[in-house]
């Protein structure tokens, strides 16, 4: 059972670079576990730390303004590269429930939805506007309303976003997609009979 997602109000952690790949989100040396847990502490580890191993005070996620942020704000093509779902597990392990970006890589987008993380792609104008708000005031609050598919910014500006109806329902009801697929057994068997197993 996933935790339900309907309306989320939080301040944002800004990481406004394009093409952030999943190797940065969670380095490969943390892929040796057999659990989904314990990855949050390694989120963006190589960007978080200075060469001597201490926390980099310049890195946005290390700054007190970003602590307990549940929304990450990124640029274009967030989550490109490796298919590792560990990237989504690391984000949720750190308390993130949504990522707002200009666009997402396909595999990350699917992985996020399956872990109760809402990926929100905004058009250029709204993304720029939101980025300005956050850079002006790191503690400003933003509301993501999944039911209405709207991001509400400080000052009342509202930005619409797309999400497919099926994934939306799964997030709102907090159910995973496997139950639906399991319910199709008769269709699958029929398909297999008709196609001789492919």
């Amino acid at each position, binding site marked *: 059972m996933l935790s339900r997602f309907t309306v989320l109000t939080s301040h944002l952690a800004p990481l406004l670079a394009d093409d952030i790949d999943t190797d940065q989100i969670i380095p490969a040396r943390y892929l040796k576990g*057999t659990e989904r847990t314990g990855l949050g502490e390694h989120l963006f580890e190589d960007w978080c730390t200075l060469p001597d191993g201490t926390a980099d005070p310049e890195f946005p996620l290390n700054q007190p303004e970003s602590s307990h942020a549940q929304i990450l704000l990124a640029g274009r*093509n967030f989550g*490109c590269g490796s*298919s590792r779902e560990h990237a989504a597990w690391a984000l949720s392990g750190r308390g993130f429930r949504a990522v707002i970006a200009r666009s997402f890589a396909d595999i990350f987008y699917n992985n996020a939805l399956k872990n109760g993380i809402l990926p929100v792609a905004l058009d250029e104008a709204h993304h720029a506007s939101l980025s300005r708000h956050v850079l002006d005031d790191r503690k400003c609050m933003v509301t993501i309303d999944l039911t209405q598919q709207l991001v509400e910014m400080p000052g009342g500006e509202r930005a619409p976003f797309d999400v497919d109806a099926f994934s939306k329902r799964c997030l709102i009801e907090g159910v995973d997609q496997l139950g639906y697929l399991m319910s199709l057994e008769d269709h699958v068997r029929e398909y297999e009979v008709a196609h001789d197993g492919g």
Partner: protein
Amino acid sequence: MPTQPSTLFDKVWDSHVVVQNGHGPDVLYIDLHLVHEVTSPQAFAGLRAKGIKVRRPDKTFATMDHSTPTLSRDLTILDAMGAAQIKQLESNCEAFGIPLFRLGSEEQGIVHVIGPELGLTQPGKTLVCGDSHTSTHGAFGALAFGIGTSEVEHVLATQCLLQEKPRTMEVRIDGKLSPGVTAKDVILALLAKIGVQGGTGHVIEYRGEAIRSLDMEARMTICNMSIEGGARAGMVAPDTTTFEYLSGRPFAPEGEAWDQAVDRWQELQSDPGARFDETVELDAGTLTPMITYGTNPGMGLPISQPVPDPSECADSHQRQAMMRALDYMQVPSGKPLLGHPVDVVFVGSCTNARLSDLRGAASLLRGRRVAPGVRMLVVPGSDSVRRQAEAEGLDQVFLSAGAEWRFAGCSMCIAMNGDQLEPGQYAVSTTNRNFEGRQGKGGRTFLASPLTAAATAVAGAIADPRALAANVGAD
């Protein structure tokens, strides 16, 4: 009423839709599911927790490749977590009845090398794996794409996936490749053109004279890196090159079933007049050896061209990305990378560790030495590739040149098994990703072809393979 001309992708997709949901994702049937140790443990754990069996263990095959040692086949040299993960795969395969090509077996290797070489990968199939480079298998006219671990669980449990239908992109490559220019250079040139997000949401079909003239291994190299352009998958329509490659492979159909399969496979072409959502063209004749200078695979350039100056970049986002990349790589803009010293040369990975890749690298190393101070690793893509290479004496060419000759695995491409760069080191690598730290924390990667890698190893600095090739016999 005449039917609409359709693309190769449409044909494979449409014939695998189990349930169409209208405005939501389709339910797609999966013909072949490949599994490895890194992205599967949590999926099996999910099945156990819910008391679900693997629905079609006969359509599921597993191997171990990501964190396996390449120095020997002895698991004790791995760290405890890596070893535990490998043991977990063994016990999962045993419990759920899944065939496993384990370490030490003749079939073991990188999942995207062994699928084709065993004949499991076939035209028209839908094929998934918890690994983004699953796009490799599209070289056979299969629809093959990488998935996350939740989706691995879905396929194990139901043999189905919920997927939005991607859009289509035609990449037409006409003309003829010049000597010294390989499939790796073709895909790096395409990525330099479309960028790392140019293919997002699309399935690419590679077409044209240059693609037709490539062998299967070269087509695999190109399809492999489709994901680096953001594409869901890359495909090449099957032809006699495909059929000749597959004929006689262990899992390929035989006898009458083979003839029927070939008849079916020949239909897997985009119809004349089929519409693609986008088209990109490349002229193979104008391509030269390529190399990357930055920290994503789209940051590539012809090897003799100067590294671009970020200040000349009009797009502010791109300018920032380039500045950050050049700072990480510590390479100057405005001059070519030729002559830039390297510490390591790596020939390996699901992109470039098949027999033809090793032959290419060996052709330039024969009778030559790896430059002093440079470490060169050659890691075959599978145990089968290793045995064939040794039968041809390629191992001796590498060893005589001073390179290391290893057992099969992903090795320094993902740097999970101890094969990795030290902070600050430079490598020319035949792999697929030059992301920050990809080959080891703080390591710096230049992506290139096996020929460029070999020429660089000899020179001790980035070198154009065409110059060395012209020199054959000089020793």
